[in-house]
């Protein structure tokens, strides 16, 4: 895909956010600013500690939906590049889940595009999440906040 396109990947294995950012940054020397967001599995102490988190996807819809979101994001802001990486499978505390980066000539477009893409990934992308704690696996329902965040746009 050319530099002007969006790079969208759905991964079943771990990835290195630092390496991804180095590659993305090197590919966009024309950008005056790059904004990135990294989501990782939260470490929580005590009885509610999450031992593992699993994200399930649906092959027929998840990646196509992420690609449509990337296209909508690029259409809305003047970007030099956009990167969206999302994991599926079993993850543990500290593992990266999602990385979004937006490169733009000016910083406001980059901030807004990354924020927009994240709000829609959280509330609209085709992922189902379950967590394992001491009491077993539990499916996670979307939070009302996620829908409020999407409604900002």
């Amino acid at each position: 895909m050319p530099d002007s396109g969006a790079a969208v990947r759905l991964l079943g294995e771990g990835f290195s956010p630092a390496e991804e950012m180095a590659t993305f940054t090197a590919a966009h020397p024309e950008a005056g600013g790059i904004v990135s967001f990294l989501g990782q599995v939260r470490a929580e102490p005590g009885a509610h500690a999450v031992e593992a988190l699993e994200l399930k996807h649906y092959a027929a819809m998840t990646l196509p939906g992420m690609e449509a979101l990337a296209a909508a994001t690029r259409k809305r802001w003047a970007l030099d590049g956009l990167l969206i990486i999302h994991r599926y499978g079993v993850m543990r505390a500290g593992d990266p889940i999602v990385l979004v980066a937006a490169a733009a000539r000016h910083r406001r477009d980059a901030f807004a595009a990354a924020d927009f893409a994240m709000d829609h990934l959280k509330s609209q992308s085709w992922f189902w999440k379950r967590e394992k704690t001491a009491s077993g696996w539990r499916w996670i329902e979307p939070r009302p906040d996620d829908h409020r965040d999407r409604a900002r746009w």
Partner: protein
Amino acid sequence: MSTSGLAKLVFLGRLEDIAGMGELAVTPGPLEHILAALDPALAVELLGERVRMALNGALLGDNEAVVLAEGDELAFLPPVSGG
């Protein structure tokens, strides 16, 4: 296993646990006939108001009549929780 002549149901998220499987091969036909042949407890969950359906990867509207043809894939999608 040959699936010729069949359609497929796909259960996502917690529906996979309730169904005890991720996919089920079914005889093509109207959805109500297919659901009537399932465990009633599962059928009730599949018809929950927060569960959306997608036919071959495309979301369906709320009141669309669904008739599965051979090779069709009908997915049941509970509310998502990504990121």
